[in-house]
């Protein structure tokens, strides 16, 4: 009798033990965070792009976790500063894939860094959402590589269309030493004839240059020039714009989306009045008409970022935001961190309304944006405004 009772209680005890083991195991698995890897140019020449990207990712991963995480698990951001250097980016990407064993990667501030990493993510079959601009990243399409920002080709197209509407047909280019600058310049030089535009002058400046009046003087004295286009980002375009004002050049000045931030206006000062560039909706979030599909997302991001970080938003942070949100949506859709399923889910993103545009990905289009994602903006009264 007693032994039977003992056996039963042992059995019961074992059952309880077994049950709790399963529960703990389940809980342990549930506790393991979903790792999102990132390598961004937080310092270095592309810092004006990488820093808001880093801040945005950190902030929103925190927010998502506070709201309960994804698939019942917390998100963990593993990020490294690649400082705009392709070699560092490659090593850090390897570290993310092999050592940190992340589930997906969002990053690659500059084209050089992204291109260096592509062979790695393809070989490792790791979903990768790039935050860099050049069109070569997704042309030809690579299975595991996606891209958030508008391409430099799109920027050229948008600008040329605007130039056409203003009857400008002879322009000058002035660009900097960066990959972004040169890549956009090359794309514009491929397209200008299609829009009936002649490039009559083509000047460049160096990194760390403090004065571009020499180049601009040459441009000013070139016969027939009607407008100037400055592909670039960071300090260079700000100085170009200031020198532009200093030399009293009256022609229209177009900047690129590389300086699509309020910071540019602050740096360039009064000379920025009248400058136009193709920018994402988020820059003029509050001015978007009420029926604009991007309005609510853009306004929410703008207010959140500005109140939390006490600094102005930029479209680059916006790309990081869109990248993160699309990644999270893909995770939810795939129902797991299985890389192949997540990749398929990203590719199936349709009609996703983001801060920087509405994304429609497909097997042949891993960028998902069209020209409507770019708005033509102009600086008026020290602020970005929509050109109607």
């Amino acid at each position, binding site marked *: 009798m007693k032994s039977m009772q003992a056996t039963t209680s042992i059995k019961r005890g074992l059952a309880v033990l077994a049950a709790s083991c399963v529960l703990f195991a389940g809980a342990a698995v549930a506790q393991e965070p979903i790792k999102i890897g990132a390598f961004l140019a937080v310092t270095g020449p592309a810092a004006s792009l990488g820093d808001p990207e880093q801040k945005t990712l950190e902030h929103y991963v925190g927010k998502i976790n506070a709201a309960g995480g994804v698939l019942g698990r917390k998100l963990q951001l593993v990020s490294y500063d690649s400082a705009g250097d392709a070699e560092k980016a490659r090593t850090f990407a390897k570290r993310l894939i092999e050592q940190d064993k992340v589930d997906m990667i969002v990053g690659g501030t500059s084209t050089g860094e992204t291109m260096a990493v592509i062979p790695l993510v393809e070989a490792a079959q790791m979903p990768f959402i790039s935050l860099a601009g050049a069109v070569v990243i997704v042309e030809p399409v690579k299975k595991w590589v996606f891209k958030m920002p508008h391409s430099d080709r799109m920027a050229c197209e948008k600008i040329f269309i605007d130039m056409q509407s203003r009857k400008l047909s002879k322009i000058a280019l002035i660009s900097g030493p960066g990959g972004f600058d040169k890549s956009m310049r090359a794309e514009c030089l491929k397209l200008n004839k299609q829009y009936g535009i002649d490039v009559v002058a083509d000047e460049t400046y160096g990194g760390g240059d403090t*004065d571009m009046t020499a180049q601009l003087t040459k441009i000013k004295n070139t016969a027939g020039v009607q407008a100037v286009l400055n592909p670039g980002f960071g300090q260079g375009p700000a100085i170009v714009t200031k020198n532009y*004002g200093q030399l009293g050049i009256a022609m229209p000045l177009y900047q690129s989306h590389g300086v699509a931030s309020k910071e540019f206006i602050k740096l360039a000062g009064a000379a920025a009045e009248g400058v136009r560039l193709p920018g994402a909706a988020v820059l003029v979030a509050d001015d978007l008409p009420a029926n604009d599909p991007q309005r609510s997302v853009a306004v929410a991001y703008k207010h959140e970022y500005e109140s939390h970080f006490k600094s102005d938003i930029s479209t680059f942070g916006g790309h990081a935001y869109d990248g993160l949100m699309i990644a999270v949506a893909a995770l939810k859709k795939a129902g797991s961190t299985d890389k192949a399923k997540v990749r398929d889910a990203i590719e199936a993103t349709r009609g996703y309304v983001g801060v920087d545009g509405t994304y429609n990905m497909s097997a042949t289009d891993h960028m998902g944006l069209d020209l409507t994602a770019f708005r033509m903006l102009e600086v008026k009264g020290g602020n970005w405004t929509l050109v109607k």
Partner: protein
Amino acid sequence: MSAQFLQFLLTGLTVGAIYALVALGFSIIFNASHVINFAQGEFVMIGGMATMSLTASGLPYLLAIPLAIAAAALVGLALEKFAVEPAQGASVVTLIIITIGASIFLRGLALVIWDKNLHPLKPFTGDTPIAIAGATILPQSLWVLGVALAIVLALSWFFGRTLLGKAMLATSHNRLAAQLIGINVRMVLFLSFGLSAALGAVAGILVAPITTTSFDVGVMLGLKGFAAAILGGLGSGVGAVVGGLVLGIVETMSAGYLSSAYKDAIAFVIILAVLFFMPSGLFGNRGGERV
């Protein structure tokens, strides 16, 4: 044509004046210790960034600028005290690596204290360009040229007329002899760092309203200042100034008349050519070599 030339010249002089100030900083430290202080560019950065913070917190320029210069001078003195002095007796190459480490350290410190963004600085007397015979010049550029000239004059008075200045000059000519006649060469070295830092800071403050400032503006300016100091001949104050102006003008003229893409390369080719014919720079000591 000549308006264009004048524009290039004015721009070249402005840029050159900045290089000259940075080059002077290199020269002064080199004179006292035969060390090239690779952290010189960081003093330029500190000048601009400190002024930016101080004015952002409400101080007027009249207060912010001297404070920023003092801050940079303090950093220079600290650098000498804590990094260079403990390494006394080490080879010159080792000291150079120490200053490189210091430059990285200071940049990292600036990154933490401030941020990675670019910051504008208000020009001293406004932004309206001044027209001169078809060319334009910013009021800030006039400040750059004027202050640089004043500093050069002040330094030549200092080195030529004051006891301390003469002591520093004596140390640069012959350290041992200077020690023998009672000059405290350690103090000279200490003060050289402070003076060079102040000079760098002034350059940074002058140029920041034109170019904006950030935690890593020092890298390029330091490099160009070094090139200017070498071009003019290390150890020569006149050489530093001439080197700086020549470098600035060559750069701008190359950009204007030759190729803007290659302007830096052309400037370096010219420096190499000068060194080929004058291995000690334009005004450098054609010293004999001790066997």
